[in-house]
């Protein structure tokens, strides 16, 4: 029941919010749905729930990790949105809150469904729920961003549907397209069709994740979308897309096709790091910089998945770390942009003086996202690197390490510049109202990311271990 509640609560709230004319009621629905969703997921951590509707919906360890990222981020974004909507009034008014809630429902569907075609339906629904939110300013730039996003994501996800049908065609035994049955009867899958299915699904979900070279929509979309939408995209949406890919990887490794899958994943992973490093250097727009950072981290996820073994553990942990860190960064940048009025780095200098709290959060976020201790991403990136070197890919380990160093420089230079640089004239807008609501979220997230870096509670370690084993990995 609780599993269905995860879908129904946001859907009902979306409809109810759309019916209200007053923004106060809409905000209340947003907050209530976010909190109830968070409470439901918390209760699932304490007492797990069995599968419902003939095993179509179930919550395994992997799904729980992704669902937790989604629900934490959404609760934080909901609080942030209440503050944001007081100062900004994005066009589309009523639909704004409903689209956010629709996004929560569709990401929950992706995290819960163990029927791959249903997972596809949820994945496409996430694309569509966010599209109106990107086009909030109704100007040429956001129009271009939403068009690229829609066309590229839709084509990618259409190819994933083709891959799903190939997978159905490859299956001779068991109930069609159910993850459990696919894994159990993996040895009977028709290998040729399974490989074709994997390639289509990799391209499809890879487009949605934004791994290079399928990332073309990402900088434009993240650059133009409101920061809270970008936070949901970079933190929650990409994690869901990764979950889709991980489900296919589960089937592939159970079918003994790891030798076919791993080189492809490694190639996409390393290439994403290369592209991210190349485009970060000289980047002058803060939000586009973060978008390339997202390309980098998606590359790391795919890399860890491709390495297998301990790399799988690093990847599962990195889903958690990356999701929360991206939320922290985009929300903080959103706060800073409200003060500076631009995300163009040279015009933003002096942030630490003009918005000290947000400046400090951005500094913490910089160290977290570049994988510096004591933050969470350090642990997961270190695990993935260790897996590369320890499991017979020393070259990949060395290249990754070099690229991570370049990326550190590429990110640190502009961010330190805008934090400490001398403000070059320009009118400093007064700090907008409702600052407390907008600061609460990033503060919670930075504490969580810090906690993940120093201490993993026992229940979390157990869930991570089960998720790793389901991917055929090894727990260090």
């Amino acid at each position, binding site marked *: 029941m609780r599993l269905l509640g995860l879908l129904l609560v946001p859907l009902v709230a979306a409809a109810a919010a759309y019916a209200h004319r007053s923004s106060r009621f809409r905000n209340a629905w947003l907050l209530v749905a976010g909190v109830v969703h968070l409470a439901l997921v918390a209760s699932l951590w304490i007492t797990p729930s069995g599968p419902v509707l003939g095993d179509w919906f179930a919550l395994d360890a992997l799904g729980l990790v992704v669902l937790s990222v989604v629900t934490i981020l959404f609760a934080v974004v909901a609080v942030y949105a209440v503050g944001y909507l007081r100062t900004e009034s994005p066009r589309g008014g009523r639909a704004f809150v409903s689209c956010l809630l629709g996004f929560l429902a569709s990401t929950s569907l992706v995290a819960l469904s163990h029927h791959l075609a249903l997972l596809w339906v949820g994945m496409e629904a996430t694309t569509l729920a966010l599209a*109106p939110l990107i086009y909030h300013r109704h100007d040429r*730039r956001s129009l*271009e961003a939403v068009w690229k996003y829609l066309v590229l994501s839709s084509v990618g996800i259409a190819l994933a549907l083709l891959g799903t049908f190939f997978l159905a065609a490859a299956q001779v035994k068991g109930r069609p397209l159910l993850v459990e049955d696919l894994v159990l009867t993996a040895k009977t899958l028709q290998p040729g069709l399974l490989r074709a299915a994997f390639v289509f699904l990799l391209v499809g979900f890879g487009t949605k994740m934004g791994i290079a070279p399928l990332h073309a929509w990402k900088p434009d979309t993240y650059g133009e979308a409101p920061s809270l939408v970008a936070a949901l995209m970079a933190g929650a949406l990409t994690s869901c897309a990764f979950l889709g890919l991980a489900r296919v990887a589960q089937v592939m490794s159970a079918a003994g096709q790891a030798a076919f899958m791993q080189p492809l994943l490694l190639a996409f992973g390393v290439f994403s790091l290369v592209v991210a490093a190349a485009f970060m250097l000289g980047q002058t727009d803060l939000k586009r910089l973060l978008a390339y950072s997202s390309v980098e981290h998606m590359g790391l996820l795919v890399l860890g998945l491709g390495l297998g073994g301990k790399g799988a553990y690093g990847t599962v942990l990195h889903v958690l770390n990356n999701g929360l860190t991206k939320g922290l960064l985009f929300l903080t940048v959103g706060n800073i942009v409200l003060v500076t009025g631009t995300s163009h780095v040279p015009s933003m200098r002096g942030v630490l003086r003009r918005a000290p709290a947000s400046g400090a959060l951005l500094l913490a976020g910089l160290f977290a996202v570049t994988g510096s201790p004591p933050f969470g991403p350090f642990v997961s990136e270190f695990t993935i690197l260790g897996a590369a070197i320890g499991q017979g890919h020393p070259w990949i380990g060395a290249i990754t390490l070099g690229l991570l160093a370049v990326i550190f420089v590429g990110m640190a230079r502009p961010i330190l510049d805008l934090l400490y640089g001398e403000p070059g004239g320009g009118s400093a807008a007064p700090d907008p109202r409702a600052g407390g609501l907008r600061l609460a979220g990033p503060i919670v997230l930075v504490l969580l990311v810090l906690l993940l870096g120093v201490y993993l509670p026992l229940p979390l370690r157990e869930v991570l271990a089960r998720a790793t084993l389901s991917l055929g990995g090894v727990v260090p």
Partner: protein
Amino acid sequence: MTDFSDLLLLLVVLTDFWILGTTRLSSVIRAAALQGAILAALPIALHPRLSLHIIGLGAGTLIVKAIVLPGFLHRAIREASVRREVEPVIGFTASLGVGAVAVALSFAVAQRLPLPESQTALLVPVALATVIVGLIVLTTRSKALTQVVGYLILENGIYVFGMSQAERVPFLVELGVLLDVFVGVFIMGIVVFHINREFDSLSSARLTELRD
């Protein structure tokens, strides 16, 4: 029944070529609507033992792909008052040639694919050909509206492929897929409206402001 379904599949390929060769936006949409109607008849032709599932699938396809979406796109061009696809990246004759190559390639590939118990030998090659034609239209046409039609054709190709699995994929899922395609094209259509208003043109080639 196989003869009838083969006929329908051949008609799908013909509409593919119609879309590739035509210059008028309204005929492109008309061809897409016709293709949608053919696709609606396809499940009934392929699965002579009628069930509620098959009839529902056919009816849903007819409403979404043959009536509502084409009607919506027609309205879009009427309001934008554009008629012709100008200067595609590759010419119309050339794209017909590419389409012919795509069909030949699809038949060659489909023969090598180890597909089990497919009802008709034409199903998979036609599906692949339509997917490729959809991609060609998407990538070589400059009007945003034609690109939306290209996306629709791409989805149609995947739908034809899905026919080979129709008995294994439950109704609920197919309903979800149809709904997603519907909403997707709808939102794209709305964006096309806005592109027209902002740029006084339906050309997506004008969208070049964002770059590194």
